[in-house]
């Protein structure tokens, strides 16, 4: 630092430096984890989409009513637990692309197209990722439920159901057990779509959230559920414990 005549603070590691700023922080991270759990279940003629509404940081509850579900249309939704600021940014990018797509193609985006777009959008930020763990869900062009789940950098897969977020470890095995995902390796290939009737699947999703809310501190307050069928989309809110 010989060439510097006057300076505030110093270079290097502020935490162990004698000239550090009055509020020395050991490091600053551009990321936060705001928690929350998302579930989507695909049926032959329906799709259920659900997400908790608590926004947290560390051991603090920031707010009890913040939606993680981004509705591109009545039949197409993105669920994004993880870092709320990144999730909102991602949603804004996708909203723009969704509108552009309609101008360019004169029809709404299919779930498959949106799923690929979401994968590409995430991978575009491969080396400074959006810290979100998305589910893209809706009805496909045949009117069947479609669910795609992602990691933070865009790897994705279509499946019969998906769980993401802080309550994933608690809910995933329950859905595996109740919805019996067929192994992709069995021959002849089996349909991996849930064969559960709609009302039973909705009850299963509600129970899953109530259970996750009991043990996961980041899941609670309420769960917002969209039930998508070809007749239309219905929204329900189920209150969860606020502790």
């Amino acid at each position, binding site marked *: *630092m*010989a*060439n*510097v005549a006057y300076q*505030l*603070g110093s*270079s*290097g*590691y*502020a935490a162990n430096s004698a000239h*550090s*700023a*009055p*509020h*020395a*922080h050991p*490091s*600053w991270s*551009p*990321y*936060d984890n*705001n928690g929350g759990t998302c579930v989507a279940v695909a049926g032959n003629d329906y799709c259920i989409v659900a997400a908790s509404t608590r*926004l947290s*940081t560390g051991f*603090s509850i*920031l*707010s*009890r*009513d*913040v939606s993680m579900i981004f509705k591109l249309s009545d039949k197409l939704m993105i669920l994004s637990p993880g*870092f*709320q*600021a990144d999730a*909102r*940014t991602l949603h804004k990018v996708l909203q723009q692309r969704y509108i552009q797509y309609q101008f360019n193609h004169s029809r709404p985006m299919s779930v498959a197209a949106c799923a690929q777009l979401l994968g590409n959008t995430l991978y575009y930020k491969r080396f*400074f990722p959006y810290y979100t763990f998305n589910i893209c869900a809706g009805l496909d062009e045949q009117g069947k439920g479609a669910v795609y789940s992602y990691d933070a950098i865009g790897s994705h897969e279509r499946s019969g159901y998906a769980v993401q977020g802080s309550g994933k470890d608690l809910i995933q095995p329950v859905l595996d057990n109740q919805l019996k995902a067929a192994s992709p390796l069995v021959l002849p290939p089996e349909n991996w779509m849930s064969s559960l009737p709609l009302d039973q699947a909705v009850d299963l999703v509600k129970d899953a959230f109530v259970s996750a809310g009991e043990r996961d501190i980041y899941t609670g307050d309420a769960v917002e559920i969209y039930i998508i069928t070809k007749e239309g989309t219905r929204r329900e809110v189920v209150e969860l414990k606020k502790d």
Partner: protein
Amino acid sequence: MVDPKAAAAVHSGHDPIKHTTSPYVTGTSVLGVTYRDGVLLAADTLGSYGSTKRYKSFERLCKVNDQTIIGAGGELSDFQYILTLLEELSNEDFCADDDAKLSPKEIYAYLSRVLYNRRSKMDPLWNSLVVGGVQDGKPFLGTITMLGVHYSDDHIATGFGQMLARPLFRERHRPDMSEEEATQLLHEGLRVCYYRDKQTTNKFQIAKVTTEGTTISEPFALETKWDYKAFVNPGALAMGTW
């Protein structure tokens, strides 16, 4: 540990680009509540330099326009920079001369993008902002952190206030409170912050926004009581502590 790149930069006579990795002059909590006719924000007037009470009359609540006020905690120079950004936007609104002004939600959306963009450059504006306003006859209250995390709620507190004042708000707040009740609640919140947050001074301001417009109070002090038994001898009621 020496960063080799930083060391090389020193030898060649060029310092590496420096970004804010820690704040210098800071403000502490900002509290906010909605009530029947609008929104109230509250904050003290201290600008701390570490543990030094550096600036004792720093006004952390500001008017943006007739329907919007903002409050800030964190790095106060960054807050003053944010105010210049808002000033520019207000000047553009004035020059357009069409009586259209930025709404509270627009200012909230704008600031959330500014703070998110700066964090994405790894050069954050080190603030927690609270935006209060009245839009379409309804109160609006939102907050934004330096990472760009943002949410709106009926009551909000940043920093220490999140731990100290927010539990009081959760117990006592109602959206249909009168101005007197809401002011009373904010006073309670400020008082616990003053008792337990060392970065708080007993000099506060309350800003109000209603359909009538905005007002920011003159600084005032709250009555405090220090002879509680638990304050005089904090260990007496908690076995096993000192």
